[in-house]
């Protein structure tokens, strides 16, 4: 295993730019590479993306590998796994990190099996073991009830990291690095899927993941009409509405509003949890919020173990008065 060296980050591209997860990963990769005293490389895969290599260097990479091919315009398992297999075999990094996104979740495990190594998905934290120098991979298990620390005994050690696990480094245009192009060498007949259509979800107002204030409702809200009140408060605070799983399953809110292990991960400044119990699986999507406020009529609800402020009471009585007062405070 001695010839494997360095940390590699797979950098996703979104709308012709480095995706936010890519900049976060470069920050994380930089930290790991520095601890190991090794190089950080970035891999950019796509079509017409060459200009982003310098950007990856500005965010912390020492080297940027670019695999540019029209066949790589859209993410597809076969083509991306094949391109990444080629890069990894050429560069031989000790560690490869990807984002826990719809791309990373598909690419990382398939690539790990292809390379005869293992991956950990959805890591909350990555660290270098001081003795073995192996990658300690901490991830949620049992729906967020537990966390597990894994090591992988083969190279490269592959992990995906959840969005917002770390803040990106400051962009530094003066950073110097090497850009290396890699020929994808793809055989079009080996790509067994075709992307027919991409359908973006419609969003009004602030994106849930970007919101500084999130008002989240649970089963206790009881109806789509109930969520209207949460939306009103969210509008007032320029925030977004989220939900636990039951309101999504019952179609009171769109599936995209779900926060939790099986939904979105949010890290707002203020998280107002209304009529939700605070199950582990939900909390694993919001527990990094700066301030959590709970409104629940059950004083024993788990959410009060997580919240900074709380009211034990019926949300139907609490919320209108709360919204009114806030309106007044904001007008001052």
């Amino acid at each position, binding site marked *: 295993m001695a010839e494997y060296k360095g940390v590699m980050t797979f950098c996703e591209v979104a709308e012709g730019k480095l995706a936010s997860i890519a900049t976060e990963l470069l920050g994380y990769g930089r930290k790991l590479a520095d601890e190991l005293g090794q190089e950080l490389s970035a891999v950019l895969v796509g079509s017409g993306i060459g200009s982003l290599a310098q950007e990856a260097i500005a965010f912390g990479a020492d080297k940027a590998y670019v695999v540019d091919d029209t066949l790589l315009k*859209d993410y597809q*398992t076969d083509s991306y796994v094949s391109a990444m297999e080629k890069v990894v075999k050429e560069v031989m990094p000790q560690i490869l990190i990807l984002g826990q996104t*719809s791309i990373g*979740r*598909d690419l990382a*495990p*398939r690539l*790990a*099996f292809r390379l005869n190594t*293992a*991956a950990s*998905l959805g890591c909350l934290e990555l660290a270098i073991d001081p003795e073995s120098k192996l990658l300690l991979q901490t991830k*949620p*298990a*049992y*729906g967020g*009830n*537990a*966390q*597990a*620390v*894994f*090591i*992988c*005994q083969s190279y490269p050690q592959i992990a995906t990291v959840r969005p917002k696990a770390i803040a990106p480094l400051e962009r530094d245009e003066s950073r110097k690095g090497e850009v290396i192009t890699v020929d994808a060498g793809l055989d079009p007949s080996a790509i*067994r*899927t*075709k*992307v*027919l*259509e*991409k*359908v*973006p*979800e419609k969003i009004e107002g602030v994106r849930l993941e970007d919101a500084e204030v999130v008002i989240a409702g649970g089963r206790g809200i009881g109806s789509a009409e109930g969520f209207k009140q949460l939306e009103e408060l969210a509008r007032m*605070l320029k925030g977004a509405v989220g939900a636990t799983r039951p309101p999504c399953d019952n179609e009171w809110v769109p*599936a*995209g509003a779900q926060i939790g292990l099986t939904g979105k991960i949010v890290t707002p*400044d*203020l998280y107002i949890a209304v009529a939700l119990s605070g199950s582990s699986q939900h909390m694993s999507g919001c527990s990094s919020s700066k*301030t959590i*406020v*709970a409104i629940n009529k059950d004083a024993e609800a788990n959410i*009060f*173990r*997580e919240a*900074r*402020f*709380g*009211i*034990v*009471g019926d949300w139907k*009585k*609490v919320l*209108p*008065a*709360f919204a009114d007062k*806030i309106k007044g*405070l*904001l007008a001052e």
Partner: protein
Amino acid sequence: MNMVVCIKQVVDPEAPPASFKIDPASNKVVPPQGVSPVVDPYAEYAIEAALKIKDALGGKITAISLGINQLRDIVKKPLAMGADELILLEDEAFDEGDSWSTAYALAMGIKKIGDYDIIFCGREASDWNAGQVGSGIAEILGLPGVTLARKIDITNGKARVERVTDEGYEVIEVSLPALITVSNEIGEPRYPTIKGIMAAKKKEPVIWKPADIGVEVSQIGAAGRRTKLLKLFQPVREAKCEIVEGENPEEAAVNLALKLREAKVL
């Protein structure tokens, strides 16, 4: 359509959080008392996806489950929901695997089943949340794979899959045979019917041992792991919630707003 669905028996993820305990010495979850294990909820979405296709086009569904101490009443649930056969990879040697050894054993089991158009898995399992076994099976069997499916249509011998993405969804066409992992957006799994439950009672699962699927004991279970679990623990909660009171709920609400302003949260 011949379909295979990978399922798993797990600790009930809906059990109250307070009942969740870990034995630190063995790094294992202590099964909560009085709470029966269940079929992994994500696997139920996979069964539902297969049943939807069977409803539309007909076909045969074989469920396959790997583990030890698999309670027959639990793992027969796919049969009660409408699957046709149940195969259990059941042996101590299969136990305590990771994604690698589990995917390998399942892939070899599926290879023995032989005739399949689609293999379904849940997008992950509710115990380890690894999310890799489906992709692993596809890679080992050399099949195309589509993950995170929310809708599947079969036309002209190909599957048209709506795949959940961070931005919404994308529509992917994939040639068959293929492996598809299913996400919760596929819709609520159906309840077993009385007729289904009666039929499942009469049906005995087929048991396969490592030798039956041609695998070495060194390649499966704990022996075949590529990853090592160093620690399993419950994250510590910092509980110091300040309960805001008032004469009535409305007054408490006003006090909360003032409190948030004071704390500069608002």
